[in-house]
């Protein structure tokens, strides 16, 4: 990747844009919201940060350290799992399924459980940070480890070397650009995970301070914390990107090759796998659920086993009433989650394409986009709700914002993956930028878009449930909050199970569509 030339005029324009934005913010906050406790002007935020600088530094030190440890552990687990999956393809389906199920567990429910398991300390903060990052690293990395030109593997084979050499010499290097792209997303996500972990009981950190600020009507403090959190997330994002540029010099060496569908030829075998694999995955997950709770000797009072939930929802006396309560709440959540999901995904893809055409806009808008995603959802959710109401629109926007940013980053990366020869070919015909975009870059972007679309499914569900819990008090997020405060852990675990099932199903549907679409576009990508 070559550094874009820095034009002083362009730089000046960017600074002018930023200054204008800040000035507009200041004026709106002072004039339109002067009497309301909603929006703080930038000067007041800056003053507050300076005033409480030592306090914020100590809190930041705690939360950043929690996030860093979680970031390291979560990504390490993701890398090892990805290498394992590519090295041993037979275990892939199962590993993917289990990794997905763990990622789909709703934070509102896992946080307290982790707190009980770990007791006091940093356990839940670190674990939630790790859980927030491992999946977004794992999925692209599997794609990256496979994005290798087959002739390179043939070369390795012709030297009589095995899979180990192929892995170390070819695959790991080919996957590095994918790793860097996902680590960039992981940096803000780990920070958010640590903050949510602090909600399960902590006496210091950014999450604790932001609850204090909101409760005590300290609007400047809330905005100061949101600013600090965003700055940290952006710095984390930039640091990973900078590290990536230092290490992985040169463009990704290959065309983006989608994972090959490895369906067997025989029909009965194919049907067997289509039915058997999900059944096996469900059985293994249920077994893990039971065994892990038994192994940790978790109290049956709150750690319900699969059998308890079966009784509660299917065979018990009140089962029908329990089911209808559960499905009513789920329906209310899905009505906003599904449109929000498509809105966020579409916006991310379109904006990525736009940025590709207008690099100057990218410079200005990228930090804003990162900031939007990085502000902890506990802060954004009430603000968005205030602006858009507690109805379905507000919820929809929260969901869209949550998945917009990862999609944007992923698609930008995909757009840049367009093979150089293809771009040269278009350039030699002086093809206009739009033609280049649609005929060369967008097809190259599709695998990244689909990877983002898959990961966005659980994210959308998480965002919707967290917003329901914090702000709107509707749907299944609210049901989880209600049931955990009244110790109705049967219903809580039923919510966890159904949400996980919904996320996994959505993920599978996207994956099916992905195979269809990529089988059409893949041939065009391998022209050479």
């Amino acid at each position, binding site marked *: 990747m070559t550094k874009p030339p820095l034009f002083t005029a362009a730089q000046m324009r960017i600074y002018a844009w930023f200054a204008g934005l800040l000035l507009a913010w200041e004026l709106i906050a002072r004039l339109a919201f002067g009497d*309301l*406790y909603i929006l703080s002007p930038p000067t007041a935020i800056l003053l507050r940060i300076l005033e*409480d600088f030592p*306090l914020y530094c*100590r*809190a930041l030190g705690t939360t950043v350290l929690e996030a860093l440890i979680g970031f390291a*552990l979560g990504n*390490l*687990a993701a*890398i*090892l799992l990805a*290498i394992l999956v590519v090295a041993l393809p037979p275990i892939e389906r199962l590993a993917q399924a289990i990794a997905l199920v763990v990622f789909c567990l709703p934070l509102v429910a896992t*946080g*307290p459980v982790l*707190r*009980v398991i*770990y*007791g*006091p*300390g940093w*356990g839940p903060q*670190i674990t939630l940070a790790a859980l927030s990052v491992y999946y977004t690293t794992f999925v692209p990395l599997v794609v990256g480890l496979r994005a290798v030109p087959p002739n390179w593997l043939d070369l390795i084979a012709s030297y009589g070397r095995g899979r*180990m*050499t192929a892995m*170390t*010499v070819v695959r*790991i*290097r080919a996957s590095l650009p994918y790793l860097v792209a996902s680590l960039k997303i992981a940096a803000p996500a780990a920070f958010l995970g640590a903050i949510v972990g602090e*909600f*399960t*009981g*902590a*006496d*210091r*950190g950014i999450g*604790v301070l932001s*609850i*204090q*600020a909101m*409760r*005590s*009507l*300290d609007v400047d*403090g809330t905005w100061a914390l949101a600013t600090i959190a965003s700055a940290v997330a952006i710095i984390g994002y930039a640091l990973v990107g900078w590290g990536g540029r230092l290490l992985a*010099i040169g463009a990704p*060496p290959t065309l983006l090759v989608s994972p090959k569908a490895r369906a067997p030829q025989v029909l009965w075998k194919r049907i067997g796998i289509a039915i058997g694999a999900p059944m096996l995955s469900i059985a293994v997950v249920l077994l893990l659920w039971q065994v892990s709770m038994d192994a940790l000797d978790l109290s049956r*009072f*709150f750690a319900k086993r699969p059998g308890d939930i079966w009784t509660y929802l299917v065979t018990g006396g009140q089962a029908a009433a329990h089911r209808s309560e559960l499905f009513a709440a789920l329906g209310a959540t899905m009505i906003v989650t599904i449109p929000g999901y498509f809105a966020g995904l579409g916006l991310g893809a379109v904006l990525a394409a736009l940025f590709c055409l207008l690099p100057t806009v990218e410079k200005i808008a990228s930090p804003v986009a990162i900031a939007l995603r990085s502000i902890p959802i506990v802060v954004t959710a*009430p603000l968005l709700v*205030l602006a858009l109401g507690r109805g379905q629109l507000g919820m929809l926007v929260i969901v869209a914002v949550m998945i917009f940013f990862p999609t944007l980053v992923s698609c930008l990366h995909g757009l840049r993956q367009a093979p150089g020869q293809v771009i040269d070919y278009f350039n030699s015909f002086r093809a206009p930028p739009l033609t280049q975009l649609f005929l060369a870059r967008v097809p190259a972007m599709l695998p990244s878009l689909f990877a983002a679309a898959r990961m966005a499914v659980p994210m959308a569900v998480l965002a919707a449930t967290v917003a329901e819990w*914090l*702000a*709107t*008090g509707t749907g299944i997020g609210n049901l989880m909050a*209600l049931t955990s*405060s*009244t*110790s*109705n852990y*049967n219903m809580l675990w039923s919510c966890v199970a159904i949400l996980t099932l919904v996320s996994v199903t959505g993920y599978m549907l996207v994956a099916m569509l992905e195979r269809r679409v990529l089988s059409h576009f893949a041939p065009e990508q391998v022209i050479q």
Partner: protein
Amino acid sequence: MKFPPISRRATLGLLAGGAASMFAPMRFASAQSNPALNFQLSWLPSVQFGGSYMAEENGYWSEKGLDVSLLPGGPNAPVEPSVMAGTSLLGITAADYASAAVAEGATFKIIAVAMQKNPFTIASLPGNPVNTPADLVGKKIGMAVANTPILAALCALNDVDINEIEIVPTQYDPAPLVNGEVDCLLCWLTDLPIAMTVAGVENVTMLLADHGYAVHSQTYIVTEEALENQRAEIVALMAGEIAGWNAYFADTDAAAELTVAKFPDLGLDLETQKLQAAKQVDLMASPLTEEYGFGWFTEETVAENIATLGLLDREVSADLWDRSILEEIYG
């Protein structure tokens, strides 16, 4: 390509190192189990638990040979599972949550009651005040949805139709009231109203306890098993706790100063804490505690609780309350 060569050995080493570090969290987890007694508080540190901080600071526990850790709560922190799982010997929760947990199979006993009067309050602004439950009709109330049963009980006690009140979900935040998004808030007397007062927003409060809502709050819970097997420790723990609260009542400002000094990383405001500390005494002190001491309860107050909890659709037996620890301490 400018990569350094990657050798098979280096890769194996890296993988082994990675695999080893996978077990790091487990070691981390086991390192957490110390022999200290844990005491699970119900919310983030503040002067709400000032008596416990006084007990810790003045050595009321250490002089009895106890090593007590005060575990902070939070918006997503569980008290009941922590006590039920044995992570904490003692926990703080309200009578309604304790009874709900018992209905789900927990074996809790309430051994003392810190807040004789329930702290739930309807806060409103002077221009549009809620002074009696009847004033709620036609109003928009901001509250955590989890608290809906509380509003329902208040309505039932005062013949108000809850369907004529519009519930707007809000969380831990007075801003919706101040911004005019809602007409009133359901919150704790010692929490959002004080934040508004300190921020210079005048407000009107109506304590639910003054309108028939009798639910013990900030109650101390232990499991039946612990009451049998760790009785001596519970007695010592509660004796220290009571001494701490008595020191608190003697000088609430000192308790506020201690809380602010003890948690420098929370950014607590001393004035707010002092106000809260003083106001909280109204909820904790009653003729009953004057006569018998902090935490006391009687058959009559328990019966009132059972009646109110019945309105919350909770079948509660008087067995949930167990005064034997207090009797041992005061006896």
